[in-house]
């Protein structure tokens, strides 16, 4: 499959539906695996890296999950194409910096991707919309089991899967969820939440920027440790914490709507006004305003039909996605800001003005759910 074809559509995790979709944007599980007794990518010589790429790529391409897939050596991808994959969360920033001796394979719905010779020989991920870590783990676990039949993975009966960095040893698993938390940010509770989650051995990070500086109110929660706990225990712990964060976010939104309706109306109105009228917009401003529109959709101020087009803008207004669709070879940042504003205006034209009377306060989460 060609790059242009795979990239023509948004990934399934963006366009699909899943539980708690209004707060949990996506769930993702990454597994690190290495071939036994072969130097890790960072230490291997070029010839050794090429050998691993050949071996692993062949195995991955033959997976039933990859029947329809895109598979490429990184040196044949332009830096722009690699950046597009980063913005879609399909490869890591570190992997995008690689060239000869590294590769990537992904399936057509972009729900599975395998980085070959990133920091480990294999970094494979499954990503899905909403909160469904168990399902995502099942997806990647199956791929792992299939690959295990043809590849000799480095494994120690006491330490588990062996990785280039000791911080990934054991399960080699990083499970994470991307959360949209405008309520907690607006009510100044986000730092409190971040601190308490960090205390129990999980990490919270802004997707673009840290803490209150996080752009677009997007945060990523993930496990920090990989040794001493089984996969389902790690995911169970993560699930419980995420469910609590969801509850806090819901309460914060309800409180905002009840006690500060003017502030909320004002914010939504301004976001709509700027996005639909501006002719130049930075990435930061766009992400923050789009986050408010997204909140508006959750609160029924905008029709739900516009959820996907707005979600898509979060990705489409990123620098590499803009450049990809541009006329000029290499846009200046002014040109980029102008193009970003144009794309957003065009989409906002389809979205009706905010209808404050339709605002529905989300039912505050209680313990007696279900």
């Amino acid at each position: 499959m060609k790059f242009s074809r795979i990239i023509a559509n948004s990934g399934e995790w963006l366009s699909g539906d899943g539980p708690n979709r209004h707060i949990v944007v996506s769930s993702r599980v990454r597994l690190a695996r290495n071939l036994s007794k072969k130097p890790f990518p960072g230490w291997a010589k070029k010839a050794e890296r090429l050998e691993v790429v050949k071996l692993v790529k062949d195995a991955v391409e033959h997976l039933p999950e990859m029947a329809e897939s895109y598979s490429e050596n990184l040196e044949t991808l332009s830096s722009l194409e690699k950046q597009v994959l980063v913005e879609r969360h399909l490869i890591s920033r570190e992997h995008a910096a690689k060239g000869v001796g590294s590769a990537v394979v992904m399936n057509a719905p972009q729900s599975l991707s395998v980085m070959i010779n990133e920091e480990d020989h294999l970094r494979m991920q499954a990503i899905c919309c909403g909160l469904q870590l168990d399902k995502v783990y099942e997806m990647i676990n199956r791929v792992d089991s299939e690959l295990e039949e043809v590849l000799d993975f480095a494994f120690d009966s006491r330490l588990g899967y062996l990785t280039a960095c000791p911080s990934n040893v054991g399960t080699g698993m990083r499970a994470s969820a991307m959360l949209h938390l405008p309520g907690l940010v607006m009510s100044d509770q986000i730092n409190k939440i971040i601190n308490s989650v960090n205390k129990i051995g999980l990490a919270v990070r802004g997707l673009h920027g840290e803490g209150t500086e996080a752009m677009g109110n997007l945060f990523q929660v993930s496990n920090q440790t990989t040794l001493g706990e089984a996969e389902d225990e790690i995911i169970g712990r993560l699930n419980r914490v995420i469910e609590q964060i969801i509850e806090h976010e819901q309460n914060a939104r309800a409180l905002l709507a009840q006690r500060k309706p003017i502030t909320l109306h004002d914010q939504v109105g301004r976001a709509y006004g700027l996005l639909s009228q501006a002719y130049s917009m930075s990435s930061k401003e766009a992400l923050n305003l789009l986050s408010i529109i997204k909140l508006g959709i959750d609160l029924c101020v905008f029709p739900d039909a516009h959820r996907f087009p707005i979600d898509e803008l979060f990705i489409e207004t990123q620098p590499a996605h803009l450049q990809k669709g541009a006329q000029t070879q290499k846009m200046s940042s002014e040109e980029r800001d102008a193009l970003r504003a144009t794309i957003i205006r065009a989409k906002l034209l389809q979205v009706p003005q905010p209808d404050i009377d339709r605002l529905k306060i989300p039912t505050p989460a209680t313990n007696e759910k279900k």
Partner: protein
Amino acid sequence: MQCDVCQSKEATVFLTQIVEGKMQKVNLCEACSKEKGVNDPTGFALADLLLGIGASQEIEKSPAAVKCGVCGFTQADFKKTGRLGCSHCYEVFAEGIEPMLKNMHKGTTHTGKAPVAYRAARVHGEKIKSLQANLSKAIESEEFELAANLRDQIKQVETELPK
């Protein structure tokens, strides 16, 4: 057996040392043992050879540090990159990595998924362990007939050793 330091010559000096209540072993060839001053036990801290534990200046100066026999990685390389060279490095630098893992993680033993081959071995190991526990109980309570029976069972299970 190969020398742990130069990874080339035959080891003739076998050293065991207790560091912080933990037994550590190093095998050295004649030349390396002299160079490291093994004959002078106070001048040779075994721990210093190994990653993580108070890496002394002695080691930083020494070019002939422990090297991974598979990939040629040394602890100096680890200091530089914070990454290991290959999966075998975990065995070579085990004593140094251990305390690091303890600090980093929830535990020091993997309890999660294992490749199919290891899963069989794990089940097998647990089976033998439980039989042995029963055996010592039987011996303690002087049930010798049961003990003999259990011993036979253990022998039987041990021959079924999975690869």
